[in-house]
């Protein structure tokens, strides 16, 4: 289909095109361009048949570099282009064997993490499939082949350094920390207390580092309760951690109990600390068998525990798998709604949202500080704390604020705030770009699991930050309707009636599904903005002209400029 390339590109990864040089001698057509990043090198190219699930087989040439798989159609009536960073590939499989008959039954099947599969048919003669399979496997999974990740080879230069966006000390200062209730501790400076925590931690003022060490012994993977966010007025805090190591015998730890009480007391007006255990209660109970558990009423008199019923990452992944089944390649038509329901994906979103609203409401109403944990405290906990912070703190709704939030809390969420179209400085493209580069391996931002690993690998020195690319192109990621409202708390409605699948992300490869780009409301608004600026300029000129000479009435200005073509 002729439109395929434009559609795919409008939603695909940022590309800096570089003209192919004639030196590589592989391409006969010098006017053609294949996008290439500095540091990207071509490994091989092959003629293949791309089995497009929407338009049938298309003959094309595929180029494999150390960063991407790029396909250009060789058919005159199709301008199809595929541009897939190798990082998004999760599986490569051979289909058909030497004896396979039938058209296009011999080739490769590639599964991607961005909700699509790619299928290429190759000639049975020669070793074209083996070559392509081996090259792809090596470069899509470089670590298993002793090759560096592309992010370490990327030589892109941007005029902004994204690595400086997040500075923990500055971010704490913005929140008015440290104060007389909270202090910074350097106990984890070399990641010796907890290797999956950052070096700087914010803890209650009156708890000593020695106490912290004893608390760490009672928390799974030593992930002790630390502050994520503090309310600027009522001083209630959001604190995150992992589950307590209660076990079958119902162990207690005086230091942990004392520590939670210290957290509660950082905010004077309340008698109880609220603990949100993100898990379903059955799972929390079951965790006791493996040494984990939750804070019991007996041990923690001054705390109130509730479960948020959010399922673990395995359940969520299974659910996402089902989403892929119903959107790729074909979208279910008349049973769309029940299929969508059976994936449970929106139910998970609803529960996460509901939990985050509860956290935000507790803190915003000043009722009490909140402690959030799940089992280890890195998936569900991060989802909850970052969403709650997005609701509470308008700073995180700006482009830089959101980058800081991502950098700080790790999140994986989408469009759930689409119902507040004026509250965010960034647009949908910003979110999609972040998700795309979560897998692309082009930037160092999402490499490795924690700060200590990133530090060992010298990631900031050796790779480019995604925020460098975004912040040097900020206009592209801005929402023109953004209205800054400093103290506004956003409460989305966690009802299925308002939740929709994020079509522009999950179903973006299907040419039949509408991709409203650009958004007509936005486009009209931009036109009006331009018109307004033009009018203001004209008015100023008229005023100047008028004050310069008071005689000579000017010619009718209405004849000079176009009128807004709309009813008022």
């Amino acid at each position, binding site marked *: 289909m002729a439109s395929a390339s434009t559609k795919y590109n409008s939603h695909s990864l940022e590309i800096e095109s570089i003209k192919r040089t004639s030196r590589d001698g592989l391409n006969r057509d010098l006017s053609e361009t294949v996008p290439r990043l500095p540091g990207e090198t071509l490994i091989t190219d092959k003629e293949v048949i791309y089995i497009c699930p929407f338009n049938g087989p298309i003959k094309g040439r595929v180029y494999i570099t150390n960063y991407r798989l790029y396909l250009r159609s060789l058919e005159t009536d199709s301008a199809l282009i595929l541009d897939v960073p190798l990082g998004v590939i999760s599986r490569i499989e051979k289909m058909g064997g030497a004896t396979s008959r039938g058209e296009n039954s011999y080739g490769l099947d590639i599964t991607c993490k961005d909700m699509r599969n790619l299928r290429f048919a190759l000639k049975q003669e020669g070793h074209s499939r083996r070559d392509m399979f081996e090259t792809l496997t090596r470069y899509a999974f470089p670590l298993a082949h002793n090759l560096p990740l592309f992010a370490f080879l990327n030589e892109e230069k941007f005029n902004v350094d994204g690595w400086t966006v997040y500075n923990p000390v500055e971010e704490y200062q913005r929140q008015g920390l440290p104060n007389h209730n909270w202090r910074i501790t350097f106990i984890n400076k070399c990641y010796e207390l907890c290797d999956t925590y950052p070096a700087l931690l914010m803890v209650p003022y009156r708890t000593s580092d020695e106490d912290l060490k004893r608390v760490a012994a009672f928390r799974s993977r030593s992930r002790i309760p630390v502050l994520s966010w503090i309310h600027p007025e009522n001083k209630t805090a959001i604190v995150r951690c992992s589950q307590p190591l209660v076990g079958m015998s119902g162990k207690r730890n005086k230091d942990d109990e004392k520590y939670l009480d210290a957290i509660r007391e950082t905010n004077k007006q309340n008698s109880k600390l609220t603990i949100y255990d993100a898990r379903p209660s059955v799972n929390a109970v079951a965790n006791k068998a493996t040494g984990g558990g939750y804070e019991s009423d007996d041990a923690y008199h001054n705390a109130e525990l509730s479960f948020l019923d959010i399922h673990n990452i395995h359940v969520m992944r299974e659910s996402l798998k089902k989403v892929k089944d119903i959107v790729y390649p074909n979208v279910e038509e008349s049973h769309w709604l029940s299929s969508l329901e059976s994936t449970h994906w929106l139910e998970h979103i609803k529960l996460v949202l509901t939990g985050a609203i509860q956290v935000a409401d507790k803190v915003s109403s000043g009722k009490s500080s909140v402690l959030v944990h799940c089992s280890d405290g890195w*998936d569900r906990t991060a989802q909850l704390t970052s969403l709650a912070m997005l609701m509470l703190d308008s700073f995180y709704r700006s482009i830089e604020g959101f980058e800081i939030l991502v950098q700080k809390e790790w999140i994986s969420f989408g469009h759930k705030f689409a*119902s507040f179209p004026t*509250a965010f400085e960034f647009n949908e493209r910003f979110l999609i770009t972040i998700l795309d580069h979560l897998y692309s391996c082009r930037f160092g931002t999402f490499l490795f699991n924690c700060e200590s690993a990133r530090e060992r690998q010298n990631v900031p020195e050796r790779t480019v930050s995604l925020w460098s690319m975004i912040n040097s192109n900020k206009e592209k990621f801005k929402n023109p309707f953004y209205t800054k409202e400093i103290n506004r708390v956003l409460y989305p409605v966690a009802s299925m009636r308002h939740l929709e699948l994020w079509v522009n992300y999950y179903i973006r490869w299907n040419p039949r*599904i509408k991709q409203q780009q650009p958004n007509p409301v936005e486009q009209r608004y931009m036109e009006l903005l331009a018109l307004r600026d033009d009018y*203001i300029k004209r008015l100023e000129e008229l005023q100047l002209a008028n004050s310069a000479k008071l005689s000579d009435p000017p010619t009718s*200005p209405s004849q000079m400029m176009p009128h807004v*073509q709309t009813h008022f």
Partner: protein
Amino acid sequence: EIHTNEKEVTEKEVTLHLLPGEQLLCEASTVLKYVQEDSCQRGVYGRLVCTDFKIAFLSDDDCALDNGESQFKNKVIGENDITLHCVDQIYGVFDEKKKALFGQLKKYPEKLIIHCKDLRVFHFCLRYTKEEEVKRIVSGIIHHTQAPKLLKRLFLFSYATAAQNSTATDPKNHTVMFDTLKDWCWELERTKGNVKYKAVSVNEGYRICERLPAFFVVPTPLLEEDVLRFQGHGIPIWCWSCHNGSALLKMSALPKEQDDSILQMQKSFLDGIYKTIHRPPYEIVRTEDLSSNFLSLQEIQTAYSKFKQLFLIDNSTEFWDTDIKWFSLLESSSWLDIIRRCLKRAIEITEYMEAQNMNILLLEENASDLCCLLSSLVQVMMDPHCRTRTGFQSLVQKEWVMGGHCFLDRCNHLRQSDREEVPVFLLFLDCVWQLVHQHPPAFEFTETYLTVLSDSLYIPIFSTFFFNSPHQKDTNMGRESLDTQSKPLNLLTVWDWSVQFEPKAQTLLRNPLYVEKPKLDKGQRKGMRFKHQRQLSLPLTQSKSSPKRGFFREETDHLIKNLGKRISKLINSSDELQDNFREFYDSWHSKPTDYHGLLLPHIEGPEIKVWAQRYLRWIPEAQIVGGGRVATMGKLLEMMEEVQSLQEKIDERHLSPVSLQAEAPCLLRNSVRLSSLFPFALLQRHSSKPVLPTSGWKALGDDEDLAKREDEFVDLGDV
């Protein structure tokens, strides 16, 4: 439990506003109306009255609404008014049990719940009301909303008689009413249909047929005696002509007969008719029989009655209990699927007309239900004029009002037969809403316009939706009556929006995204149209079309004209049909949209949506404070006002030093704080407490063992 404010018990006397001709029938005092507020209920004392026009609740509590937001007030029906025709179902609560109320009651309920056709739900507590008054008001309301009525007893007539002198129609209303020969000639000329079709006045005074309008359009060679033969049945009636000359026609079926000789007569009559319209200059005709292989009215009725229940929600618990199963409940109602089928059928018809240059003949028993729906839907998609406000209103006049859609029966205004009540017109509005929602810049009107139009179906001061046919209207208005002494009544039309809304409120009916078509000179326009046609009729990819089809496609026009029906049958084999459809559909969607050209809807699963404004607007739980599309629209309107005021300043050569900040008052000031339900259901929310679901997670089924697994680093993208 509900909380009442003691001082409110002293009821302030609030005056009942009566329309001309409206009469108070019964009333009850110390009635408690439940108000949902911040997810708890509160009671407001007041007077419940029933007139021959409406049920109204009078209290002095609405003063809180007296701010900028209430500018979208309806001048005819207030927030606490329910017209008698708008009542859908009445329930009584007896010892905590909810029962539907009908006819004579033996026992009177302590609470009255009224479900409205516009999906509002009212709760009135009668516990503190005198027993006598309870009896009077409950039986009064039941009687006046449920008992079968005579047409002549409609409030419409009392109103028209009483308001005789004050009715002034809006001079700016350019809607074509299609009640004169001139209107039809104008439409023929506008669509260039006058080459092959003519407007006729054979039915003036309804001499031939009471189901047809006084004036209509038929193929030029059609004889007057053909029209007479079966009282207007079995003749092709023109609806609309496409720019390429093909036309949309409709025909009501001939009466079903057992007698062989009559059947023979019918057959030869139809053969004659088909012969007339099958030969050049007429295009190949394709008949779309809507009574046999399309939706049935029964299906529409069943689907809607399931669907509307999803929105008639009594309380918060009910809302959250249904939330988890929301998508499957929605699907099992089939309403969205019915919308999809209508849109799909309309696209198919569009493809025949636009790409294959065929005439379409819609066939239905009375040609007044699905015929109206499809022909007007096709016109909205193909004719940009129908996407302007006056164009759309003229379309509704032409296809629905003059087309003889039985509004009286389909809305069950007279409560004579529940079986006949089918929301065909609402289905049409919902289909149009899908288009409005998918292509916002293509329409001059907004979704709010469609919503208030759907509400107007139940306001019996407008004649538009209160008759089964133009004949019925004219005979009952006294226009055709022999009694020369009585002056014909002057009834209001719904298109006079100033009757319901102040000018400021009417701005919400106009779409700020709509830009009128730029005027081009004639030569240019021709060129563009030619290009457009070419794009649509070319096969998309040469490689995948089979040689056989390629052969037909290239030569279609030529061959069809020569070989006639045989070939057309061949082409229309069902596979081919699907292919043509897909190709047409995909091809259109792959190109940038020309908002002043052909407009097709998306019909994939995720694209057909619930018309949230109409269906969710009264449900407090569904409200997003400071959210929804109103937020961006508000900012857009603010910017437009600013631009306009700057423009005016320049135009007035207002050159004295002024600040450049626009100070024009705006309807949507501070739009970022408005609720997503704006401009409806302006619920008072005093605190900013979030709404929280009250029901939890349901069983996961086979994912149970996954749920027990431990957390670990997992790549969520690896699916």
